[in-house]
């Protein structure tokens, strides 16, 4: 193609055209990048300004005297609803919910993918189809049925508490959220792992069978150690989704001490005691966004690689 295009360019005196094309392309790219980065930039600079500077200055200007106070206030002092102890408690609430939910849903997805590809049973395709269907169920349609189920589980927890002495976490809002996110996440994690394991050489499983490894030994010693790329993809995907979830969080843990970060952030912004502290709000929002950013930075290159591997081989 290039050999054919070259003479044409020379005839039309195309060196200039080429440069103009480049300028337009890169100019547009820079513009879009700016467009996307602007909110982040505003958030960052605002979170380091004093209220005085925010009210009198330009939104885009860099802070004249950068201060960490809004961050400290957001972390430890700002009011969430009626309690004024900062967002740190809610940050840990989110961690306590996200880590188990991500790990459980990822492990279940891996196990499902393993069974659906390497231990095929009658109707495996149908089961996979139904699990795939779970990916398309809108959050909203699950809200009420799930609330009913969580209510029943809560009552079971109470009666267990009375009879056995422990509720096994049933009825605890954090446990409820973990349960909801695991159930909702299984469809996606299964899809990821099934597609990855579909391309995974079956001869390895056969060799391990001849070697005498059991179902779970094959899973733990052969499958999992060779699933790093898809494992990272799934963890990032699940972590981002669950951490950022607001709907389930506000519906099932919207009040009290166990609300996750997203709900707390909303309450920080909505708490109207006098002047709106933009710098503190921005700092709180940044803190809420940090974990997902961190996960991307640490594992981002695996993300692209893993998605590619699944796409090409699957």
């Amino acid at each position, binding site marked *: 193609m290039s050999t054919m295009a070259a003479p044409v360019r020379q005839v039309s005196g195309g060196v200039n055209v080429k440069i103009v094309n480049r300028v337009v392309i890169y100019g547009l790219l820079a513009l879009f990048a700016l467009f996307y980065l602007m909110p982040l930039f505003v958030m960052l600079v605002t979170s380091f300004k004093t209220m005085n500077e925010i009210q009198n200055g330009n939104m885009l200007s860099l802070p004249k005297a950068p201060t960490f106070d809004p961050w400290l206030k957001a972390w430890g002092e700002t009011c969430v609803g009626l309690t004024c102890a900062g967002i740190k408690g809610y940050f840990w609430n989110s961690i306590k919910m996200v880590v188990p939910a991500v790990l459980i849903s990822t492990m279940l997805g891996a196990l499902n993918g393993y069974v659906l590809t390497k231990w095929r049973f009658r109707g495996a395709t149908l089961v996979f189809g139904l699990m795939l269907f779970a990916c398309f169920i809108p959050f909203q349609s699950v809200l009420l049925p799930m609330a009913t189920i969580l209510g029943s589980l809560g009552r079971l927890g109470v009666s267990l508490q009375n009879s056995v002495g422990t509720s096994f976490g049933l009825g605890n809002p954090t446990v409820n959220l973990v349960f909801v996110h695991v159930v909702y996440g299984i469809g996606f994690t299964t899809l990821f792992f099934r597609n990855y394991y579909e391309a995974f*050489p079956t*001869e*390895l499983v*056969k*060799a*391990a*069978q*001849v*070697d*005498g*490894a*059991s179902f779970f*030994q094959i899973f733990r*010693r*052969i499958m999992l*150690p*060779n699933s790093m790329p898809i494992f990272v993809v799934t963890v990032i995907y699940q972590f981002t989704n669950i951490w950022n979830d607001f709907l389930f969080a506000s519906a099932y843990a919207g009040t009290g001490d166990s609300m996750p970060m997203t709900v707390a952030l909303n309450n920080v912004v909505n708490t109207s005691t006098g002047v709106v502290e933009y710098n503190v709000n921005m700092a709180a929002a940044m803190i809420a966004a940090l974990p997902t950013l961190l996960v991307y930075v640490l594992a981002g290159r695996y993300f692209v690689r893993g998605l590619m591997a699944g796409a090409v081989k699957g």
Partner: protein
Amino acid sequence: MAFLEINGLRKRFGQVEILKGIDLELEKGGFLVLVGPSGCGKSTLLNTIAGLETITSGEIRIDDRAVNDLHPSKRDIAMVFQSYALYPNMTVAGNISFGMEMRGVPADERQKAIDKVAKVLQIGHLLQRKPSQLSGGQRQRVAMGRALVRDPKLFLFDEPLSNLDAKLRVDMRIEIKRLHATTGTTIVYVTHDQIEAMTLATKIAVMRDGEVQQFGTPAEIYNNPANVFVADFMGSPAMNLIPATIGGDGSGMAVVLDREARQPITLPMTNAPAGLSAFKGKPVIFGVRPEALTDPEGAERNASHIATADCHIEVVEPAGSDTFAVTNLGGKGVVARLRADANIQPGTSTPLAFNLTKAVFFDPATENRIR
């Protein structure tokens, strides 16, 4: 009592019958090669012996013990896979000892076994490497090491050489043969390469469409093929299968080979198989291997029955050690194998010697051998 016995084995996937009643047996220390074109069921048969596939009916016995319902790890077998199936996350040593680890062999015994196998296969310097850091031949050795270390009753090889380049394949073939000779193990080996089958086997089973076409020693398979398929499949260049008619008068018989625009060739038969008399005046398939069709000087001296006829040579292919000449008989290109220095020119006629002692005849309707 055979060491490995397969009786009436059938395997069905839904409505499709993959194995249609296989009967085979192999003595201890034997080397059985299952050979056939792709899709003939040879790999499935191997997998059923390994226990990786269930069987629909029939029986598999290893060392006089029915293993039909035993888990692969309980059958006392080891398997080398086509892709080698080395665990990518483990070192070579880890790969070799994984099976022992699963069976709970203590660490020091495992180490001893690894060292012993590494010495036999000369892979001692590779033990700490990962499979991705090995060449094709080295992976092949490790895969064999993983099988050897178990010291099983039966070795199963599933096309182990098909991923190697031509030169390495010949080297590894010799290596496997040497291994078999020195260790005296019993081996079942699947391949689609008839040369591997001929060189390695003590017994060959030629398979097609889930059935064993012929089961016998390499010499039996090569010299006495049971039907057209076996004759055609085994040997390179392939056996010439020439449409012919049986002529002759009274008690004497002759093979008549038509030629385009030339007089037919008539080869008198003195040692015709008994069954051939029923085909007098009828068409048959006349099978003669290229090495049994040669220049008169190069013909086998102690062959009792040689007929010579002038043939028109169409193509000459010097191959270094031999010269192959193509002539047209019965409407088909027929390959003759001559001495390397045979002086022949394409487009001329030259006498060719048919070694009729080695010739075979098939019924064109059933494609079975006429004996």
